[in-house]
């Protein structure tokens, strides 16, 4: 990854989050600076309560930070308490649950963002079908979400997030609810998508193996209050395959992360 190319994809300046009441405030995230390069795959890793999901949801515009500045592709996300819609158009979100609407078929779920943006029916369908081929669920266009397996639903959720071609994909433990084998397959799929589409990806996980396998850089967060503990570069060339996990270099990074997590968790 060439980190110096052009303007950063995401730039966070001193963003901070307090939750709760005046009497019992909770400091979810201490003031945090972070820059994500355009075309980088950044993983947020940490124990529960470290603010990694809060941080991701703030980048996605779902939570307004208490203080600090955020710019996405060089544009402000918030301006005087209002989310900026043209900035949001650069962001696609994938959640731990696929969150497909059960009353829409798979293709209509994937095309939902386009429908909200007023794209015509024929174009929506064409785009949805292309995305279904991209994520490997072609043939399930007219199915209901409940008829698909967990892994396939998550593929559909990724396709939905890609439907309006955002520059940045934000993923909140997207494979956390899947079994280990499906998860490995999805990690490979995500790497392929990342290489084919050249998106910037920020992914939250609590799996060290997933973090080291996928990331260009890993941001390790520590709890109470959530803050960045350290940032680890992962130098392996792509495409990476699953045998990488057995290599000494991979093990070394994973073990040092595990040791540090044990200290801060």
């Amino acid at each position, binding site marked *: 990854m060439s980190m110096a190319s052009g303007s950063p994809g995401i730039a966070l300046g001193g963003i901070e989050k307090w939750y709760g009441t005046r009497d019992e405030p909770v400091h979810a995230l201490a003031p945090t600076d972070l820059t994500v390069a355009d075309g980088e795959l950044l993983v947020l890793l940490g124990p529960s309560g470290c603010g990694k999901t809060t941080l991701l949801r703030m980048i996605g515009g779902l939570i307004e930070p208490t203080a600090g500045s955020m710019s996405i592709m060089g544009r402000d996300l918030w301006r005087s308490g209002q989310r900026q*819609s043209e900035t949001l158009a650069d962001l*696609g979100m994938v*959640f731990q649950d696929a969150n497909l609407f059960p009353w829409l078929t798979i293709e209509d779920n994937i095309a939902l963002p386009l429908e909200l943006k007023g794209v015509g029916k024929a174009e929506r369908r064409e785009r949805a079908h292309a995305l279904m081929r991209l994520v490997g669920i072609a043939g399930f266009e007219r199915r209901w979400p409940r*008829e698909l397996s967990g*892994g*396939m639903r998550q593929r559909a959720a990724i396709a939905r997030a890609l439907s309006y071609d955002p520059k940045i994909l934000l993923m909140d433990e997207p494979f956390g609810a899947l079994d280990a084998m499906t998860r490995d397959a999805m990690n490979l799929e995500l790497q392929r998508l990342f290489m084919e589409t050249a998106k910037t990806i920020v992914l939250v996980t609590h799996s060290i193996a997933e973090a080291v396998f996928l990331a260009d850089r890993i941001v390790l967060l520590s709890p109470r209050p959530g803050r960045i503990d350290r940032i680890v570069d992962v130098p392996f060339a792509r495409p990476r395959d699953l045998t990488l996990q057995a290599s000494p270099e991979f093990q070394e990074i994973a073990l040092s992360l595990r040791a540090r997590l044990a200290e801060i968790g």
Partner: protein
Amino acid sequence: MAEKANEPPVMKAAGFKRETILPWITTPLLLALLVTVWSVYVRSSGVSPFILPAPGAVFDEWLGMLQSRRAWGHTGMTIYATLTGFFWAALIGVFLGVAIARIRWLELTLNPFIVATQVIPKVALVPLFIVWFGFGITSKVIVAGVLAFFPVLTNTVLGVKSIDEGHRDVMTSLNATRWQVFRRLELPSALPYILTGFEVGIVLAIIGAIVGEYLGGNTGLGHLLIQSMNAFETSLMFAVLIQMSLIGFAFYFAIGALKRLLIPWHATGAQPR
């Protein structure tokens, strides 16, 4: 690809077909058994036809009703009162339910009254409605509507409140407008609840209409039932009961058909395939 695109759908339950056929056999059998026991009992016990007429006599009476313009007039009045009352109950119940679920202060303000009116036996208010709205059709429509209103209201509130937070996150991240959130998320998500409210409401509307007819006026199946009771025409009473039950079934199944049409994706609206 880890998962093949042509694998069979996950949800096709084995033995599903047998489960849908079974009631079509057992229901007629049980009905036949009931009628047989009834018939045998009437013949062997020598019970007076004023207490319990034979099933054959009841059936003849019902066939007679089907050929009587007057009986159809009564049936029509009951259907009219039921549907009109239900229509207003559904309309107001859904709109007020959505408002209550979305506007916190409205819910806090109205909740004590809703609970109170839920607890009051509403049938006890029928004489009051007759005093206010007279012996005509209006009081029946209002009783039917009042009874049908609460299940529609409470189910709508529940439906709007049960909307998945993850689904809301999706709409928020897509920067959906308030109208889009209502039209694309809240309405379809609440629809199964609303239709369940309709299912309960339509049956209560029939009860309301009939109870209204018991107490006042000279139209409707409820009135016909009271009239036959006063005249000791017990077989006519049974025939009216059959007519009422058939109306109830028809409305209930109509809502069921509406469910299959509007929420085919939902388990309760799923078509057997």
